[in-house]
């Protein structure tokens, strides 16, 4: 690429040189001059100039100009409010006009203290109002979703939220209704704003018009601490700030890491923090008494019982990891069990591989890819929501997005991928071998030498790869499958909620569960040690790019964290592990991350390691992907393949947040239009889904779905088999609540 042409212009008497086409707001920032803005936000696409706060005087143009809509031109002479009296007067008038109907209820408003309108009014606005008429009053607050409250009196119509909805999340649900002075932000009828990314409009709003219902009246900006950490709910690892007050997490804000999340955050990451304060959170170790029920015991007793269980199993121990442990915790657990007890057998949540390190690139590279190929049947947003946003950005930037059910490329696409300099492969489905299969594909397409071409595997767990690597680093022995299992250690809530782990527990003599919630421990565990959440731990996670990111403790957990008691327990077996994550990380870094590294190297915005050389993986049996059922003949109402999916809003964490209930999938079966038509099923009909068992669900016709499949969320699919028959319910009065017919 040739170097962009530079232009020289003068802003407030300062000469500044920037590449041609740079926005005036950024250009001024280069010169150390601020042009105040409300509506301008480069991440939302082209500027709209709606708020008029950025008025500047440009020499040669008689009227004031909206600075945000201008770009740097050669020889331009610009005066901002700091030097140009005309511009200052314009900005003052703009603010006075904005404030005419603004309620000025700052003491009551959640935004008060961190409000751009407040700040800019102090600096650029009039000290007094000339408005003597009663202000316009409207009903408020209006819950536009269970998590977002809208106050139309405070709205200044900057259109940031609607632009986000239209051109970033592309959900088109939040719109401006009416025109002129009657304009108002609205959703359709009374429908809630239901989108994976709806919470971002709260952060975008420059006034207190859109506020979080969870954070409503919880704290003022001078009473809080923002802890920079990362989200531990999906493999992206979005950078977040946890706002805490008086030792409690009050809200989650995004923290822009331009390579990872660009400052967007999904609703799961943003609104799921109340899981820390769930009613059934376990606060002390629990021991099973008699057949049913638990008795609370002290931590000393708890560790004694754990020691006894570990010794009693005599090495016949299996550990089920959930992939949401920090790498330090997994390493410590590995050292305790593998070195201290010789128990090498572990159930990892999914296959992992480092093969994709050869095709590593930041997630942001998806955003300007020419062609994006998504392989797999799971929706990207269900596994890694931010990746879904990057793909949308690629499409807006003119890239082609191809979705394939299985890794079979036709010749044309293959040629295109080979010749492109900016191609991206994404594996979003099962049986990907942790990225090994995708790496083979990328290698065969010649991605090795092209730094612009990358490949990403979307794991199912937030830190599956980090946990696997840390567990492997703990000892150098092959695992043996003990039979019978003396003790099953269940680490984490996801493992505790996993039916496969539950099945394994049937075969185990004893079960030690490390979980946060009573509901997950009841009925099967002999000893329960309380767990902590990602917001309460120090440590690090490895995200899907292979980026090691630092998790910081936002609040002190109600129980000792895992690393603390694992270190104590390990000492009883003669294994020395530090209870401090930083020291464990340093120890681990030497073996896994090749050399010395400390938390200081990770930093607040973790860098991406360089690409590794591609090494062909050892041949291993690859689980075959079940072939999609052929579309049945016209008049034959054959079976459909059941596509179970794990929705983003599912799992033990989300289940404990009542505000997120509206985001969870309804008891529905999604059908392709052709399949539905053949069965005379219309949208919203009650249908019977039949395999070994029978369920009644509501039908939803999805035009994006390929024919031949019935897509049902895991929580509603229950024990249906792999192929199902779908037909209209014969009894129209059967309620579509998902009951067993």
């Amino acid at each position: 690429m040739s170097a962009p042409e530079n232009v020289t212009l003068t802003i407030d008497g300062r000469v500044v040189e920037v590449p041609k086409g740079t926005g005036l707001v950024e250009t001024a920032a280069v010169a150390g001059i601020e042009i105040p803005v409300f509506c301008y936000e480069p991440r939302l696409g082209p500027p709209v100039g709606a708020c008029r706060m950025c008025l500047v005087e440009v020499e040669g143009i008689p009227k004031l100009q909206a600075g945000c809509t201008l770009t740097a031109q050669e020889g331009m002479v610009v005066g901002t409010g700091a030097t140009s009296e005309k511009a200052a007067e314009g900005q003052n008038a703009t603010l006075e006009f904005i404030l005419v109907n603004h309620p000025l209820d700052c003491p009551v408003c959640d935004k008060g203290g961190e409000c751009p309108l407040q700040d800019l009014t102090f600096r650029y606005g009039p000290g007094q109002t000339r408005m003597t008429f009663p202000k316009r009053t409207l009903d408020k607050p209006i819950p536009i979703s269970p998590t977002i409250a809208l106050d139309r009196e405070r709205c200044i119509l900057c259109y940031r939220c609607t632009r986000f909805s239209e051109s970033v999340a592309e959900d088109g649900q939040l719109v401006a209704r009416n025109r002129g002075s009657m304009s108002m932000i609205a959703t359709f009828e009374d429908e809630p704003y239901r989108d994976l990314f709806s919470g971002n409009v709260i952060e975008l709003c420059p006034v207190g018009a859109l506020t979080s219902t969870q954070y409503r009246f919880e704290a003022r900006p001078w009473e809080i601490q923002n802890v920079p950490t990362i989200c531990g709910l999906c493999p992206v690892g979005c950078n977040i700030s946890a706002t805490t007050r008086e030792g409690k997490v009050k809200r989650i804000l995004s923290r822009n890491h331009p390579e990872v999340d660009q400052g967007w955050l999904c609703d799961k990451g943003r609104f799921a923090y109340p899981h820390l304060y769930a009613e059934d959170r376990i606060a002390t170790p629990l021991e099973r008494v008699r057949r049913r029920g638990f008795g609370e015991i002290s931590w000393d007793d708890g560790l004694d019982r754990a020691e006894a269980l570990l010794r009693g199993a005599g090495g016949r121990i299996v550990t089920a990891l959930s992939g949401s442990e920090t790498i330090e915790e997994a390493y410590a657990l590995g050292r305790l069990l593998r070195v201290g007890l010789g128990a090498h057998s572990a159930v990892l949540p999914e296959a992992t591989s480092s093969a994709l390190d050869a095709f590593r690139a930041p997630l942001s590279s998806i955003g300007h890819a020419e062609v994006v190929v998504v392989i797999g049947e799971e929706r990207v947003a269900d596994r890694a929501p931010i990746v879904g946003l990057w793909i949308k950005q690629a499409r807006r930037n003119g890239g082609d997005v191809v979705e394939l059910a299985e890794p079979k490329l036709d010749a044309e696409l293959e040629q295109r991928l080979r010749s492109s300099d900016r191609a991206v492969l994404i594996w979003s489905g099962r049986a990907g071998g942790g990225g090994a299969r995708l790496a083979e594909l990328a290698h065969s397409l010649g991605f090795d030498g092209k730094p612009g071409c990358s490949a990403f595997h979307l794991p199912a767990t937030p830190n599956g790869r980090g946990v696997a690597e840390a567990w492997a680093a703990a000892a150098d022995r092959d695992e043996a499958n003990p039979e019978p299992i003396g003790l099953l250690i269940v680490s984490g809530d996801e493992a505790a909620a996993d039916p496969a782990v539950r099945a394994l527990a049937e075969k185990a003599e004893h079960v030690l569960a490390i979980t946060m919630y009573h509901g997950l421990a009841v009925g099967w565990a002999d000893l329960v040690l309380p767990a902590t959440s990602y917001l309460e731990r120090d440590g690090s996670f490895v995200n899907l790019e292979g980026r090691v990111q630092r998790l910081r403790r936002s609040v002190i957990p109600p129980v000792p964290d895992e690393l603390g008691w694992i270190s104590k327990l390990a000492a009883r077996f003669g294994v020395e592990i530090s209870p401090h994550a930083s020291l464990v990380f340093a120890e681990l870094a030497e073996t896994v991350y090749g050399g010395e590294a400390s938390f200081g190297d990770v930093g607040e915005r973790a860098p991406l390691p360089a690409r590794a050389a591609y090494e062909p993986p050892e041949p291993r049996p690859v689980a075959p992907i079940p072939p999609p059922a052929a579309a049945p003949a016209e008049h034959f109402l054959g079976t459909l393949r059941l596509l179970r999916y794990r929705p983003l809003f599912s799992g033990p964490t989300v289940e404990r947040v009542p505000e997120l209930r509206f985001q969870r999938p309804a008891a529905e079966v999604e059908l392709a239009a052709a399949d539905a038509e053949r069965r005379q099923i219309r949208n919203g009909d009650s249908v019977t889904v039949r395999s070994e068992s029978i369920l009644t669900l509501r039908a939803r016709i999805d035009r994006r779905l390929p024919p031949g499949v019935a897509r049902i969320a895991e929580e509603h699919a229950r024990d249906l088999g792999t192929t199902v028959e779908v037909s209209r319910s014969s009894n129209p009065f059967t309620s579509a609540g998902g009951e067993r017919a």
Partner: protein
Amino acid sequence: MSTLYEEIRELMAVYPEPRSATLPALRLAQEKHGWLSPEALREAAEGLGETPAYCMAVASFYDMFHLAPVGRHLVEVCTNVSCALVGAQQVLEAFERELGVRPGETTADGEVTLRTVECLGGCGWATIVALDHRYRTHVQPADVGAIVEELRADG
């Protein structure tokens, strides 16, 4: 599938940018349903492949889309600058008296809806009143009684 869906699909094919079909699609939906009820907006949205909220936003911007039920006859009084200067307000008030409703309302018998609209493009013949989309020019408050009688007789 409803015919509306197919008609909108045909419309979209005419434009290089499918979204351009929004206004004609909404007009079709309004013709079919009489007004743009939530149901009508939903149908239009399905045809366009947009969200109902988007259709609602567009429809609420324009005066010629009705987001509330209207009567059999429609009386639209222009209250923009030119008409206002020659007394559109008095004409409007005359209609209010004659029909017994306020602007935006429909008479109790469901016959006539009275609305104010923005410029109808007849500034040279102000005040403009559109009766079921047919213009009456130079309307004076004194003419209103006859106009309403005519409308009622027509029904």
